[in-house]
């Protein structure tokens, strides 16, 4: 009987030790987990995408060297445009653009929100604070396309999931794409920041933020 009790206790202790994770490790695991929500059934990372790309596809790596991701925010003024419009850009991100049969078929990018920079140091700090991007709580933002439809000549309509402040919304925007002598993409569109939970100061700063994307890859 004593031996039975001993083994039962041993099993119970083993289960207890095996099931519990220290909070730091769990958080570390969560911090390492990709924030990108692909909006698809698959849980692929950007790197894994290349392994499943059809053989007639080309993947272009998006880096700060060939890509600019910027934004413009404006204050609420009686008569526009706002003379104090604030612009900034993200300086650390990674992504891929996939070309299939010479057409842009997929684009995905993950951004380190703490890399945002403006021309004013105080403004940079303010944008990083919980008033706006809250970069300590939400260190990553991402975009993954779900469909890219051809539009007018040289233009496409990109639809995808944008994740900002931990909230994912589907957005669509037009982009100009050129594959002559390389790959070039330019897009300018607006988002409503409050839809992503960035709702501070709506009586002082416009809800709509203009996003600009420029890719030049030879």
């Amino acid at each position, binding site marked *: 009987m004593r031996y039975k009790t001993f083994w039962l206790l041993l099993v119970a202790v083993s289960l207890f030790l095996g099931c519990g994770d220290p909070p730091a490790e769990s958080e570390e695991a969560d911090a390492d987990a990709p924030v990108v929500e692909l909006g698809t059934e698959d849980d692929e990372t950007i790197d894994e995408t290349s392994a499943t790309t059809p053989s007639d596809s080309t993947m272009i790596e998006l880096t700060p060297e060939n890509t600019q991701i910027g934004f413009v925010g404006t204050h609420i003024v009686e008569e526009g445009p706002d003379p104090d419009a604030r612009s900034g850009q993200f300086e650390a991100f990674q992504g891929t653009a996939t070309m299939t049969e010479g057409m842009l078929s997929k684009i995905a990018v993950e951004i380190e929100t703490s890399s945002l920079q403006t021309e004013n*140091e*105080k403004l940079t*700090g303010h944008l990083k604070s919980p*008033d706006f991007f809250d970069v300590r709580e939400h260190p990553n933002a991402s975009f993954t396309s779900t469909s890219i439809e051809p539009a007018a000549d040289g233009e496409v309509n990109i639809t995808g999931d944008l994740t900002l402040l931990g909230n994912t919304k589907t957005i669509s925007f037009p982009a100009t794409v050129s594959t002559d002598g390389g790959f070039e993409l330019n897009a300018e569109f607006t988002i409503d920041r409050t839809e992503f939970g960035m709702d501070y100061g709506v*009586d002082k700063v416009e809800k709509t933020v203009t996003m600009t994307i420029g890719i030049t890859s030879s």
Partner: protein
Amino acid sequence: MPFSSTDIVFGFVLPALIVAAVLLAAQKWRLSRAIDLSPLALAVGFHLAYWMVGLGPLRPESHWHWIPYVITVAAVISCAKAIGTWNRGARAALILISSAAFAFFLVPTWQDLEPTRSVLIVGWSLTVAGVTLSAESLAQTLFTSKRSHQVLLVALLISSLAGAVVLLLADNLRFSQMAMALAAAIVGLLIANSIQSIPPQAESTLFPAVTAISGLLLIGRVNSFSDVPWISYVLVVIAPLGLWVLNLPYIRNLKGNLRVAVGLSISCIVLGMAVAFAVFATYASQ
């Protein structure tokens, strides 16, 4: 101007007036005879500004979302302390344990937090408990008149305002507005205190007020990317203890407004230093 007219009206003026009205109404209907409602009035004033201006979400998801709920619990605990008879040790234990519990929610769980989460939880809860108990002891030994209670409320008010300035300089406008919300609630208490024939006990507002000021400065500091130093935040929290100068023999014998002025001047000097350090750090590098 970082704050709009909406912020000022709904984030300061209206909450202050409503708090005063609530306390005066409670006294008229004799609700405040059985229990001192000042701590709850303080929490109500803060919440009014917080929700009317939209300073945070209803459901807490980040560490700083817990601040209004922490202040509310601190207010309820203050009311509970005022009802029963607690010996000094039990009161100290209650405040210390409560502060530690609040710190558990307010201190973020980031891996790269500096100082570490453990250090911040211990340091913050000891600071809140120490300042609260010290100020309560001061209130019990020195403050026996209506004027004296107003002095303590004024000390808390100027600390809140200084905290708002420090947070503004640290590029945290949202938390600065929360500090203004706290200041608005204290102004409401002062208005009611000056009108009521039975003034509220200012010491009962100490725990929620110190919790609020310290909590706002904690979340402001850890979320700031500015050069405002730690000393600015700490000085704002401990500034009300400058009133201990009233215990000095020579100053105790001073009369009326002069004694009040001396008592508050030390707190003002400490707060001035806090703001000065923040201003210097902000503009010296530019």
